[in-house]
């Protein structure tokens, strides 16, 4: 099948429009992801798929130092200083944008249609003063597949040149089916709210990226009331995409990419993201466990409250009986506090961590693309070498036509090699910028969330003080 194709595909064999039979097989890998939503249409002209194939399989192996015979890429070391010390503002000025002032809200989820063809429509409202937009406030209606469509367009344009494209929210078969079927219960409401919030975070993250913000697809998504249905959109979630990438990588066993990491920065950063990935996943798991236990605590507190009320009823000492009923009321209120806290834990913490775990996967993907770019460049170089050797041999034969052809091919390949080197330098430069931006945002995001979380805890403590202060005199009144 497609995953066991030969390791190095010559770049020029793949065109963006080939629809060979081997590409169908790639779909069978993940039927769940591809055909999950009945309303999603799958087309063979997917940008992701072509992106995948055109860059060749991506090796998931850490680069090691190559033997000296391999031509080493030369990265302008002037970049080191520029990017380790440049500030975000400098970068923005570089790109000539005005200061970021934008707020997007996703609201008013509305069920459209009936049965299995139903979907949720969300209102996307943008408020901004930035010059790139025609108006200062505008709304459009969008559905989930529109968001996925936007993401796949952005991914196909920017991932392989090193931009960290924020992943779209996860699809959920179970969640959506409940909504379609018309179950109006708490869990389906929770699901819709979870999704709405995730879509909002997704858009905000996307527009905060100075390059993505200016992308015409993004602008169209936010502004145009008529968005062409994402018919040709591959129903691939970002997780699905990366799963496929990794599957391809796994199948390419024992392939080592030898890169000269004279640029220690990339190696260190890659290790850093590996560590971060592990830590964040661990943290995410703990927070999810906390949310679960807090919900449990809320239920148990409510049950205890009822039990205490019953105990109060059966107590025959009047003042004690009253105090016990009051205790029951306090515990009921505390139960509500636990619930609210669990929600805060969830929305503030757990979801953010989930976002970051997915984001880090995107970051790792971008590093992988850099390696693929390097490999492509190396492959061109090696091919050039071979052609040069072949041409040298042809010099001694009397085949002027072949010689000319060889010379032409060499000229073309020299161009390719130069392009490969430029691509590699460009992606490296872009990644450095992106990683800086990402890390800065990460720290800011976490700090904001922690502040919000602490504030929610402050509220809880203040409420607790209120409740117990009201109860204390009741307890003292027992005589």
């Amino acid at each position, binding site marked *: 099948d497609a995953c066991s194709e030969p390791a190095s595909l010559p770049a020029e064999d793949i065109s963006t429009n080939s629809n060979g039979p081997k590409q169908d097989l790639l779909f069978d890998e993940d039927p769940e992801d591809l055909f999950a939503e009945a309303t999603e249409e799958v087309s063979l002209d997917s940008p992701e798929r072509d992106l995948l194939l055109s860059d060749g399989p991506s090796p998931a192996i850490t680069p090691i130092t190559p033997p000296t015979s391999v031509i080493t890429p030369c990265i302008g070391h002037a970049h080191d200083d520029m990017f380790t010390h440049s500030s975000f503002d400098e970068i923005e000025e570089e790109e000539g944008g005005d200061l970021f002032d934008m707020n997007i809200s996703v609201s008013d989820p509305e069920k459209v249609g009936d049965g299995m063809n139903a979907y949720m429509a969300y209102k996307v409202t943008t408020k901004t003063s930035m010059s790139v937009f025609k108006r200062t406030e505008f709304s459009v209606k969008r559905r989930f597949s529109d968001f996925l469509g936007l993401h796949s367009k952005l991914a196909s344009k920017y991932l392989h040149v090193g931009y960290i494209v924020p992943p779209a929210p996860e699809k959920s078969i179970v969640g959506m089916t409940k909504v379609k079927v018309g179950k109006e219960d708490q869990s389906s409401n929770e699901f819709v709210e979870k999704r709405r919030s995730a879509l909002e975070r997704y858009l905000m993250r996307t527009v905060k990226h100075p390059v993505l913000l200016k992308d015409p697809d993004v602008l169209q998504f936010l502004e145009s009331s008529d968005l062409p249905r994402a018919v040709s959109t591959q129903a691939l979630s970002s997780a699905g995409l990366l799963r496929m990438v990794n599957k391809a990588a796994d199948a390419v066993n024992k392939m080592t990419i030898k890169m000269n990491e004279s640029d220690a920065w990339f190696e260190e950063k890659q290790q850093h993201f590996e560590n971060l990935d592990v*830590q964040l996943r661990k943290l995410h798991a703990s927070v999810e466990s906390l949310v679960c236990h807090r919900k449990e605590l809320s239920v148990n507190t409510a049950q205890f409250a009822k039990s205490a009320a019953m105990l109060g009823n059966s107590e025959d000492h009047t003042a004690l009986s009253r105090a016990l009923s009051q205790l029951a009321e306090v515990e009921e209120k505390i139960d509500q506090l636990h619930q609210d806290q669990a929600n805060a834990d969830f929305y503030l913490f757990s979801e953010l961590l989930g976002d970051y775990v997915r984001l880090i996967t995107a970051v790792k993907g971008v590093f992988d693309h850099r390696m693929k770019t390097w490999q492509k460049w190396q492959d061109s170089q090696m091919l050039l070498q071979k052609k040069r050797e072949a041409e040298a041999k042809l010099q001694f034969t009397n085949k002027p036509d072949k010689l000319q052809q060889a010379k032409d091919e060499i000229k073309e390949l020299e161009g390719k090699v130069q392009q490969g080197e430029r691509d590699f330098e460009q992606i490296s430069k872009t990644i450095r910028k992106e990683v800086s931006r990402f890390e800065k945002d990460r720290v800011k995001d976490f700090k904001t969330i922690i*502040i919000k979380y602490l504030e929610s805890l402050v509220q809880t403590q203040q409420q607790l003080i209120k409740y117990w202060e009201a109860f204390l005199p009741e307890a003292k009144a027992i005589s």
Partner: protein
Amino acid sequence: MHYGMCCLCVLQPRAVNVDLQTDATLQVDISDALSERDKVKFTVHTKSTLPNFKQNEFSVVRQHEEFIWLHDSFVENEDYAGYIIPPAPPRPDFDASREKLQKLGEGEGSMTKEEFTKMKQELEAEYLAIFKKTVAMHEVFLCRVAAHPVLRKDLNFHVFLEYNQDLSVRGKNKKEKLEDFFKNVVKSADGVLVAGVKDVDDFFEHEKTFLLEYHNRVKDASAKSDKMIRSHKSAADDINRIASSLYTLGTPAMFKFEFEFTSSVVESGLLRFCFIALQKIEARVAADEDLKLADLLKYYLRESQAAKDLLYRRSRALVDYENANKALDKARAKNRDVLQAETSQQLCCHKFEKISESAKQELIDFKTRRVAAFRKNLVELAELELKHAKGNLQLLQSCLGVLKGNT
């Protein structure tokens, strides 16, 4: 005939005998305890001016089984049928805690040094808390006996306090355990007796209805409070783990490549501080509830059972008395063994009346004790919750102040 309300105050570690309202002629406490592999050794310390003791102050070492022996000797003593026998202390149970410590030891390799140290401290604190609680429970039992005007004179009690050799009260053998089992079966069958027969005496009728319902409600509340506390502990454990992760994430190494290096170091330190604080906050609240509410409910579950047992004994005596009356009537009718029947009837009558009289007072005192204990513990619970909520608030607000100010 009122005994002091000292007993529930000992549920705090080492706050003993402060409120003992009876005379100082007999003061008992557990001055020391040693936890060995599978048993706990309590040092029972007595101070007494009573003439029956050889010295005024002395200590002996006792184990749990000896407490149980003492309790059972009270229950089996017919003379004490009219009293609420102070409930026996529960068996020291460190199994769960020990298992956790063992699991931690096994998993040492898989966690960071900080995590391990922190978890070890938590588990050791838990072990210590359980230990303190079992000491308190055993002490409460002795205090209650010492405060009871009749039980404090019991000979077995004095032997327990003074005899400095092992009482050789080996654990019950199979036969005895079986006997106990049947005794309990009979008791519960007769429990129906207690509920079914309407009492002539209004006081006892009311008490019966009340106790039956109360006991069940306390049982339910005790179980639910345990569940609540378990959830709280699970959440606290999660917060521990979160704190550890954040601690690791907060290492300067994670912030190393930031151009805002210095401020990141400060922030990372703050993060860690905040989360260690949070973890303490959650763990504390769970411990408070445990002490105050759960222990209180558990204790009154056992006390209300002891009160029920008293009512049961009285009912049995009443039945015996009624049967003796019937036997006497029959004897008189047949004019045979009348004297014997009369004596028997008088004995039963006397026994029943004696039990009724003391039972009445016991039940009144039970109510007084109960109300006082609940009051004390509810007030202390509210005060502790307030103290901690205010402390937490302060801590959180200072964290926020620094975090926000550092932007």
